């Protein structure tokens, strides 16, 4: 599904990622953990080329999604981002109605007529387990929702354009515990249909939601394995130290 080969990444002269090789399978949840500044978010943003928006950055190596090198010149970035959705750390609904937020991706990509969009909005909100809370106020501003609801709206917004992969960059770090557990439940459900990659600072969260975990430190992928294995019996001492809270 996703495969990276010898990825190096630079912010100016600073090398943020060093020779990363990884394979992520379809319909799994993969968690990236590691101390702040270890490169895990940078690595995540490679998969939908969001790093392109940052000035003075450079990547070497290959990043292959569904058999295609997404850094090849022939790749249409808008199409890629439709296929690889993203949810951000801070909920960022547009200052539009709830309906318009979910419909946004469909409209900018010219996906279907009004009936199709209305139907798709409803399905997406249902998939994001938000429908029951908002079905009576679809025309109200998304900014009136609570933080947790906003984040689920952002997930619904990402689901609407029918991606196959969803990237989540610390999706629950700005939320309260109840909202967090809702997001985690949602990740469990979404796994049936989507490939999910999640960056998290919260190790319990990584242990709870993911099948596979990658531990990053100083731009290197230190250990990448089955989540159980990583948390119960890691091969690497640094991983052991990190998950037991001895640093980071």
């Amino acid at each position, binding site marked *: 599904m996703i495969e990276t080969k010898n990825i190096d990444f630079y912010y100016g002269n600073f090398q943020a990622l060093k020779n990363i090789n990884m394979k992520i399978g379809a319909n799994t949840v993969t968690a990236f953990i590691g101390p702040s500044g270890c490169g895990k978010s940078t690595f995540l943003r490679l998969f939908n080329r*969001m790093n392109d928006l940052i*000035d003075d950055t450079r990547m070497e190596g290959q990043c292959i999604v569904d058999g295609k090198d997404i850094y090849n010149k022939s790749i249409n970035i808008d199409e890629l*981002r*439709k296929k690889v959705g993203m949810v951000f750390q801070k909920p*960022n609904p*547009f200052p539009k109605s709830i309906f318009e937020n979910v419909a946004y991706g469909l409209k*900018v990509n010219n996906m279907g007529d009004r009936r199709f969009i209305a139907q798709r909005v409803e399905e997406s909100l249902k998939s994001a387990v938000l429908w029951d809370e908002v079905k009576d106020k679809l025309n109200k*501003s998304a900014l009136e929702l609570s933080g947790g609801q906003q984040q689920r709206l952002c997930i619904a917004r990402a689901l609407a354009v029918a991606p196959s992969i969803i990237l989540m960059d610390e999706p629950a770090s700005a939320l309260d515990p109840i909202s967090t557990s809702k997001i985690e439940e949602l990740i469990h459900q979404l796994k049936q249909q989507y490939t999910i990659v999640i960056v998290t600072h919260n190790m319990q969260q990584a242990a709870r939601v993911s099948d596979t975990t990658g531990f990053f430190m100083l731009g290197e992928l230190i250990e990448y394995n089955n989540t159980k294995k990583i948390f119960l019996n890691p091969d690497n001492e640094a991983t052991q130290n990190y998950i037991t809270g001895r640093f980071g």
Partner: protein
Amino acid sequence: MSKKVNQIIAFTIFRIFGLLVVAILFGILGFIVFNGIKVVNWEFLTTFPKDGMTSGGIFPAIVGTFYLIIGSLIFAFPLGVMSAIYTNEYAGNSWIVKFIRIMTNNLASIPSIVFGLFGMSLFVNKLNFGDSILAGSLTLGLLTLPLIIRTTEEALKAVPDGYRTGSYALGATKLQTIKRVVLPTAFPNIITGLILSVGRVSGETAPILFTAAAYFLPKLPSGIFDQVMALPYHLYVLATNGTDLEASRPMAYGTALVLIVIVLIVNLLASFLRGKLEKNKKNT
């Protein structure tokens, strides 16, 4: 002296100076209202000047000022907004953006009389528009351009980056992102900039002195190549150039009052509109 007394003294001094500003404003307004209110009535607003401008009204000057406001905004608003979109959304932080910003600031600091001179030589003479609404509007447009660019840039900067990245992440192009998310979000603030420039345009005299304004016209302009009367210039004429200065003094105060009230109404309209737009945004 104890620290506390020091605090109180400092606070009092700052407060006095703060209030002083308000006092100055009210002093000027009070003076104009007191002297002008006597002549302002329906006839004053709706008729032409009479008897060598010592009686009658200022109708053509009011109309002329509105023409100049609208004319200048037609030029300056699209140009300014598009320029700000370029510098803020497209150009990144390259040298060309820095250059454009410095030049915009320089443009803003050019004295308005110089704009008048430039407008005269380019629009009136070179392009042969003559003393006209067109030439005056273009000159005033140039004058307000930096203001519109700067307020639009501020408005665009105030749009959270999360909106942009969120839009890109859904496969939207840059243009779609600007059109569908950035501009609608920034719109209330952009409108504020527009209104500020209306205030500026309606009060400027120097730029229209050589490009558009007429001493006296017996009828309203019939096209964009006609001269117009305008409130600030009319005020200048009444105060310094009339046939009988003593007799036209009350007319001058009346004109000043009308000018101030127009600017005030425009500003109030702006804050009302802005409040409404922001409320709409929350409710839709």
